[in-house]
């Protein structure tokens, strides 16, 4: 790891200022991606701004018909939280399936979505549940947040404050996980809401996306058979030693069906 200066501000403003003060400064959340990347010398920030001292970034609350999760809330905290478990059990289950217990005790929602790993779980929830990402500057709709491989709509100097997840009528997440890391080879969040059905997919493509053909079919008939006959193209999907693009395309259909079955309860 290259040398850096360490800061632990205790307010959002101070963090934003420290971030703006140096163009090579980086935020540190749980560090479960940042520190391994720095150890490999793939990142060499001049300054690390640890967000753990900012109380308002951590915790879960209910806000009208939505659940708001602070950026620094760990995966373990989301998985165990009573509000999340009762209002959006699919989100609690997703958080509980990330990595391993020690990763869940440090990794955070904000770090996960800001990193936008194509195989990360939370992006499927943000897209599939139609969440809104609140930053220190604005609100970003889920459909606009994930832009590409490890790329989001966040601008330099912008940091995630919280994510607002609308409570769905029913939802479930199904993932075909990598057996060693538990990252998603393909993960699908299906949600039925007052406004229709949403299908958010992670792992399959460079960034999380919606499958609108499935959404329309499920809006008419929220049952696994509604997905029969929908074939997912392998064009543009990820292929690697773990799974080819064709296999991932096939898994999208299988995981979507499993999610619908689970969401029907």
């Amino acid at each position, binding site marked *: *790891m*290259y*040398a*850096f*200066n*360490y800061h*632990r501000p205790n307010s959002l403003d101070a963090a934003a200022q420290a971030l703006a003060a140096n163009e090579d400064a980086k935020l*540190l959340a749980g*560090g*479960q991606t940042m*520190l*391994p990347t*720095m*150890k490999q010398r793939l990142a060499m920030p001049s300054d*690390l701004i*640890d967000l*753990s001292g900012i109380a308002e970034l951590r915790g879960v609350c209910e806000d009208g018909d939505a659940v708001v999760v602070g950026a620094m809330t760990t995966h*373990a905290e989301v998985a165990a939280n009573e509000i999340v478990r009762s209002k959006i059990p699919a989100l609690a289950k997703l958080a509980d399936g990330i*990595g*391993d*217990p*020690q*990763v869940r*005790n*440090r990794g955070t929602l904000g770090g996960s979505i800001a990193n936008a790993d194509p195989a990360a779980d939370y992006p499927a929830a943000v897209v599939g549940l139609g969440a809104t990402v609140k930053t220190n500057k604005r609100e970003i709709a889920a459909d606009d947040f994930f832009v590409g491989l490890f790329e989001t709509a966040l601008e330099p100097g912008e940091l995630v404050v919280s994510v607002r997840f609308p409570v769905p009528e029913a939802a479930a997440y199904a993932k075909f996980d990598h057996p*060693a*890391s*538990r990252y998603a080879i393909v993960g699908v969040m299906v949600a039925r809401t007052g406004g229709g059905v949403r299908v958010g997919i992670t792992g399959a493509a460079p960034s999380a996306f919606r499958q609108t053909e499935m959404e329309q079919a499920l809006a008419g008939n929220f049952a696994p058979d509604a997905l029969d006959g929908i074939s997912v193209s392998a064009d543009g999907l990820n292929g690697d030693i773990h799974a080819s693009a064709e296999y991932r395309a096939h898994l999208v259909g299988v995981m979507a069906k499993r999610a619908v079955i689970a969401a029907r309860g």
Partner: protein
Amino acid sequence: MLTVTMTVNGQKVAKDVDPRTLLVQFLREQLNLTGTHVGCDTSQCGACVVLVDGKSMKACTMLAAQADGCEVTTIEGLAKNGELHPMQAAFKEHHGLQCGFCTPGMIISAVDLLQQNPDPSEHEIREWLEGNICRCTGYHNIVKAIQHAAQDMRS
């Protein structure tokens, strides 16, 4: 340099560190607590697991600075008054180790499991050990040891 202060195995320590010092380096090299091992140094194996404010974490994927103000428990902190912790005793009794390299991390991870779930099923134990890799035992005796420790600690 940065001054970090934490309570390690019940003892308050304050030391100057380079900001890039990992918690595991701090424990091993500055406090000479070499019971916490480094297996992979890439967040995969769990040999470095310690309790930070009561929760199990990988000390190789955490800066010492991030533990500033925290309570840290390492394998050296489990025995009390010369008596092994029930989890240590169970690993010994049920032969939950061969080379012993993974053992400190396994034991700390298992202690965290029982804090949250005093009566885990075999399946729950195996799921919990997702982040702890053992290259020797095949896990059976580790699981058995944790089951027996759970029994002992409940009674």
